[in-house]
Every structure is written in C-alpha cells, then in structure tokens.
C-alpha cells in the first residue's frame, strides 16, 4: 500500500469521526488537532484506520506522531 492509499483511509476515518469536517479539508500537511479532534477522537481515528488497514501498532510507536504526515508514515510502515 502506498502513502496516498493510506492517507485516503485516514481521511475517510477522520470524516467518519468528525462529521463537521469535509473530506476536502483533510490534508496530509495538516493535523487532527487543527481539524478539531480531541484526544479520544484521535484514538478513534487511529483505531478505525488500523482496523481498515489490518495492522496493529503498539501505542508506544505513536509517541512521535504529531500530525497527519507522521501518522500516515507510521501506518504505511506496518501496512
């Protein structure tokens, strides 16, 4: 799976969890916090993305994830 395909999954799950966000507003250069996601929304988006991609990533791996680009990179590594 390439970076773009992984990003599309994350974007779809972001819109599922944050109904006030339109798909076009989700950019790989942005962050979930800026889109209005609180802490549990972020875990929600990550959980749904992992399940969709069929991966499991230990929580410690997320320590350096600060934005959508680093999230997509991490997911792609395991996908």
């Amino acid at each position: 799976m390439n970076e773009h395909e992984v990003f599309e999954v994350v974007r779809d799950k972001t819109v599922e969890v944050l109904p006030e966000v339109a798909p076009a507003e989700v950019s790989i250069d942005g962050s979930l916090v800026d889109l209005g996601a609180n802490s549990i929304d972020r875990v929600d988006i990550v959980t749904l993305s992992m399940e969709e991609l069929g991966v499991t990533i230990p929580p410690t791996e997320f320590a350096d994830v600060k934005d959508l680009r680093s999230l997509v990179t991490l997911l792609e590594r395991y996908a």
Partner: protein
Amino acid sequence: MTEPVVVTGLGIVSPIGMDVASFTRSLRAGRCGVEVVTDPAHDDEPALLAPLVGFDLATALDGLDGLDGLAGLKPELRREVLRAGHRSPITIQAALSAATQAWLEAELPTRPVPGDRVGIVVGGNNLTGAYAFDQYDTYLREPMYLPARYALQVKDTDHVGTLSQALGITGEGYTVGASSASGNAAVMHAARMIGCGAVDVCLAVGAMSRLDPPERAALAKLGVLAEPDGTEVEAPRPFDRERSGFVPGEAVACLVLESRTGARRRGSLPLVELAGYAQALDGNSLSDPSVAGEARAMNTALAQAGVSGCRVDYVNAHATATPAGDDAELAALRRVLGTGRPWINSTKALVGHTLSAAGAVEAVATVVQMRGGFIHPNPTLRHPVGDGYRLVGATAVETTIDCALSNSFGFGGFNSCLVMLRA
C-alpha cells in the same frame, strides 16, 4: 414535605412514538409496538420484543423544530447535542433526543437557569450488557480494534457525562438503580435534590435497556418472558387470564422537574404536580412480588401527598403480565384504594416492559393522559382477572384525572410509587 415539585418538561423515544406528541397519539389509539423478532444468538428462534426501529438522532432533532409546545431548537444546541451523540451507542443517542425534547418543553433555552443549578439523575444499572456483548468478538479477534471510547461507553455513567455535556448541566449528577423501578428512583431523587436545595431544576431520565442474549435467556429461564405463539402478536397481556409473561421494550424517557415556586419565577408551565413519592424494600433478593411491600410504598406516597386512596382517579400499574406480579399488584391496590373506582391500565401493554426506563416512560404516559383527559386502552384485555377492578379494555376512556398513581416494582424487593396531581 418540602416545597411542591412540578414537572415542566417531558421527552420520550419509544417503539410507538419518538416524541411526546406521537407517543400520546399512539397511547390514545392503543397502538402496540410489540413484534416478533429472531434471536441470532439462539438459532434465529422467534422472540417477542417492542424494538426501537429507525431512530436517527439528526432526524429526530430536525423533527423537534416546530413541534407544538416546544421552543425552537437553536443551531448551537443542535450542534452540541449532535457532537455529544455522534460516536455514542443508540441508547445514549435516544436519551439525548428525549432529554432535548424535555429541555425545550421546559423552555430552558429561553428561560435559562445557571448550569450549576441544574442537575441530572439517570435511572438504570447494567445498561451496557448488549454493548459489551456486541464488542466481544472484536475483543477476541483483536483487542486493539475495540472502539476508542469503549472504556467510557461501557459505563452506565456515560449517560450522565454525555447528557450533561450536550445540555451544559454542571450541577449534581448521578446514576441511580432500583432494577425495574429505576425510572421512579430517578424521578424521586431528582425531586429530593430540588427539595433540599441542591439544584433548582433537575432532569430525571429512565435509560434504555437493550438486553444481551445471555440476560434474555436468563429471564426466559425464570419463566417471566412471554413467548411468541405462531405469528400473531398477542402479548403482553397484563391483567388478562391468558397472560404469559412480559415482553421487553426499548425506550427512554426524560422529565424535567423543578419547585413550583421556581417554575412560577421562571415563567415555565407546570404540567403536573409530583405530590408524593415513596420506595420500600421487601428485604428479599428474589423476584417474587410482595403485596405488603407494594401497599406500603403506595400508602407512604399517598400520605406524603396528603391524599387519601379514595381520591385516586387512575392507576398506571406496573403490571408486566406475569400472573404473580399482576395479581399481587391488584391485591395491593385493593388494600390501598379500598374502592374499585379508579381506572387501571398498564402502559406495558403497548410499549412492553422497558425495564430501567419503565418508571420514567410510564410517568410520561401518566402525565400525558392526565393532561389529555383520557386513559389508554389495553388492547389484548378480553378476560380480566380479579373482581371489582375497573380495568381499561380495548377502548380508550375519556375522563378527567385529578389524581394518579404510577407504580414500579423490581426484582430484588423494590416497590415504588409516584403520586401526581393536576397542576
């Protein structure tokens, strides 16, 4: 007793109406929400249930705008309610709709009370059995895929957290439980919180029960559930000789309570007065009812209300259609009321036994019947048990109700009664 408490708002989501107006119409028409469903956990065996079907929170909120008697739903409140409910289980989404209805009817958006003077009591325990059961396969397959909010949503108190977030309630808030009398317990505690000055306005919510397959099987094992008989839905049949047990129902209801003085000051309209309430335990952990315990709860509530049994016009009975339960309640009513004058029905004939919500659902049913001057039918009552009771049959009764009782009893020896007077 301390200052009188009145009801100023109602809300309901039920199998026979997803707002108070449609629920009231269904009561008048004697519309029953019971269906035959299949149980996927038991070889698709047929079972009886009054299910909540087709509920969607956004659609429900849109439907509130412009409903008679409700202050309009402002966009900000709509947004907060949807935000709170978006990732919530259906039981909480339905509670959000019911609470918002009651909030609007009580005119809290337009005649506001400071958030820290508003409280909330949610009646019901063990509300998340079905939620946990539904997630168990995911847990076995891959625990990391459990919903992010599982740790929050598996707790009964998620009702309190979510409703208080949506409505900006920052006074006192709790869950309370009394088995099938939880709804009445919520109403009683809300009234007490107002009476002692802890809050000025309090929401009482009877939370929705969704039975998980093991609990349903366990109830069937006790012999208390009505089983389907062919394709005809002829149950539940409270007070009828052919009664064969209860049918679970999925509903949630909310009442807004405040002191009479507070309502007058705020300019909100009292719907009824909650003149008395009482609860009494049997000192019994089993499911068998007690005539003495039920009578004691009713007598205590009537005494608190300063009303004698002969003034009661209508009894919204607990009556679930189990022979032991129905008979015990009729015997207790004979002791308490003396005469056979009051009309008696059971809303469970139409919405099933809504378990944790029952006391609140039936309080709403009592209020709307008092205000509408009618008593809903019991459509399957053909051969009434007992003698000398005025049990409502297949046709609604048009009559004035000045004084009503609403009973709820629960496994584990819980007996409770609310006394309502015309406002």
